[in-house]
């Protein structure tokens, strides 16, 4: 593959007729990736389900109907009913809301805390860098779920605390990725040039470094969403996340466990929902990486050509 093909369009210096911005090129590359498009469609449906959930759900999530309990999938109950006769389809639909909300907010927390830590650490180096990164290493050294459980043990169970716990667990990833990219970018000639033009540290970080490190951060954020949703499911499964009677996929899975032989649909459908959501985020993340990270991309393309 020709390395310059992407940025080399207008390199001859003649004004090029077609103005192709970076964002546009990224979108094009993502849209050419079929898995990423599939992921995007699934995510769009999920977001729609999360927003419209209560209006399109055929039953109320807490509609108890003991007469119809543990019935299999039918036209009345697409995904069957649980031990209290509640409609599993409605509960899975509403569960999307919790999963996405926890995922986005947790990753948001990790971004807001992790990226500035990485920026400061990478840009200033020295003692600040050592302290911040050693703290991140400590967090990173503990298994993610275990750490989240420990944090919830301190904060107490609940959906808000689950978001905070998952956010803390994923902070070091963003700090590290940001720091690594900053270390490369801060040595660029344009950073030196900006400084020689009288820019302050804050301005250099904001206008020159941050925009150049967004690509790996974006990719990591989309992949982290998948992990965050999985983590939320695990925490809810353990009873530390969403509290009853609100439906969450992880909790539905754990409730369904007891009835697995009589009513497998109780566990299967929330399980499938988790798998599909996580895979969708992964596909989108991979697609973004192909578009935003040229080195990784060339590896992937050369593999595809074999």
């Amino acid at each position, binding site marked *: 593959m020709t390395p310059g093909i992407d940025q080399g369009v*207008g390199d001859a210096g003649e004004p090029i007729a077609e103005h192709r911005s*970076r964002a546009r090129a990224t979108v094009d590359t993502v849209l050419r990736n079929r898995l990423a498009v599939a992921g995007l469609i699934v995510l769009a449906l999920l977001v729609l389900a999360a927003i419209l959930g209560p209006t399109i759900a055929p039953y109320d999530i807490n509609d108890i109907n003991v007469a119809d309990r543990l019935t299999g999938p039918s036209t009345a109950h697409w995904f069957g009913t649980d031990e209290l006769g509640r409609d599993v389809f409605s509960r899975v639909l509403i569960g999307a809301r919790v999963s996405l909300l926890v995922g986005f907010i947790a990753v948001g927390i990790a971004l807001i805390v992790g990226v500035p830590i990485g920026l400061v650490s990478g840009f200033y180096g020295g003692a600040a860098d050592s302290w911040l990164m050693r703290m991140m290493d400590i967090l990173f050294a503990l298994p993610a779920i275990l750490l989240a459980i420990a944090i919830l043990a301190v904060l107490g169970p609940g959906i808000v605390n689950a978001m905070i716990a998952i956010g803390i667990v994923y902070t070091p990833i963003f700090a590290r990725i940001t720091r690594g990219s900053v270390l490369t970018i801060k040595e660029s000639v344009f950073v030196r040039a900006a400084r020689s*033009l009288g*820019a302050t540290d804050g301005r250099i970080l904001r206008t020159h470094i941050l925009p*150049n490190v967004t690509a790996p951060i974006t990719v990591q954020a989309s992949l982290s969403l998948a992990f965050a949703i999985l983590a939320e499911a695990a925490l809810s499964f353990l009873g530390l996340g969403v509290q009853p009677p609100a439906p969450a996929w992880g909790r539905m899975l754990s409730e369904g466990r007891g009835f697995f032989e009589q009513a497998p649909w109780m566990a299967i459908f929330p399980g499938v929902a988790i798998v599909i959501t996580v895979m969708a985020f992964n596909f989108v993340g991979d697609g973004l990486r192909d578009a935003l990270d040229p080195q990784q991309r060339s590896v992937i393309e050369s593999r595809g050509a074999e």
Partner: protein
Amino acid sequence: MTEQVLSVDDLTVSFGTRLGRARVVNGFSYDVAEGETVAIVGESGSGKSVSSLALLQLLPVPPARVEGKALFRGDDLLTMSDAEIRRIRGNRIAMIFQDPMTSLNPVRTIGYQLIEPLAMHMGLDDRAARARAAELLEIVGIPSPGDRLDDYPHQFSGGMRQRVMIAMGIACNPDLLIADEATTALDVTTQAQILEEISRLQEYMGLAVIWITHDLGVVAGIADRVVVLYGGSIMEEAPIDDLFAQRLHPYTRALLASLPKPGLDRPRRLEAIPGLPPNPVRLPPGCPFAPRCTHAVERCFSEKPELRNPESSHRVACHFDAGELYG
């Protein structure tokens, strides 16, 4: 004599390394007058770039140690506070770097990057800054400048990017422009255009220029005065015509002898200077060039020659007179 813009006195820069203190610039003194072009010439590692980065306090100061004085219009650049030196950078003294391909931020438009120094130093509002940015692109010879402000660096060729860098450099009407190997990465025709552009700007704005290069051909084209640097010390300093007419220092002679000479009947081997530049961690006590000098005698290894003839404009740091050496 015209007024001095910059007066560097006994500039010494060293870096702490694991192997000891690397003395990269050793007592470097020179002046730059208004509207003058001074070329600082030397091999890689002669300290020419480091000495200019030191002027603007652009060296990372824990490993680096900068001593001496650098008076810019009477104020010492080296003792200024962060805020003070920031007001000088890009505003009164601008710098252009070697590699035009990487000196521009790839994710920001040309217009944005041109507007940045204008907003920082001159407090222009968006509209005024944009108008000025277009004017600057026009000054450095970029066609249809208004339309190109929203283009990204990758849509410009190397030569055009270097023109943009120059435009950024002169944006705030500086008194002094430091061009650090500014044309080295460009092909010769582009290089000639850029040199011409800078001479034109110089006349038009009364700009003083420090031109850092290893290319004596470039020096011949634009410089008023040449400072030959070796091992962080001045070997020879002279007005350009004097230097090409009469090279006093063996290093300068060797440097010029190593240039290809066009117009000879037969291609000849280039005369490289044998040996390597001195290791800044273990600088010889005598003349830094002595180990590679064909004329060196014992005294050259033990005693560092002072710059002589300081009263005239042609100065040289050698124990010998040219007459003694070259007959």
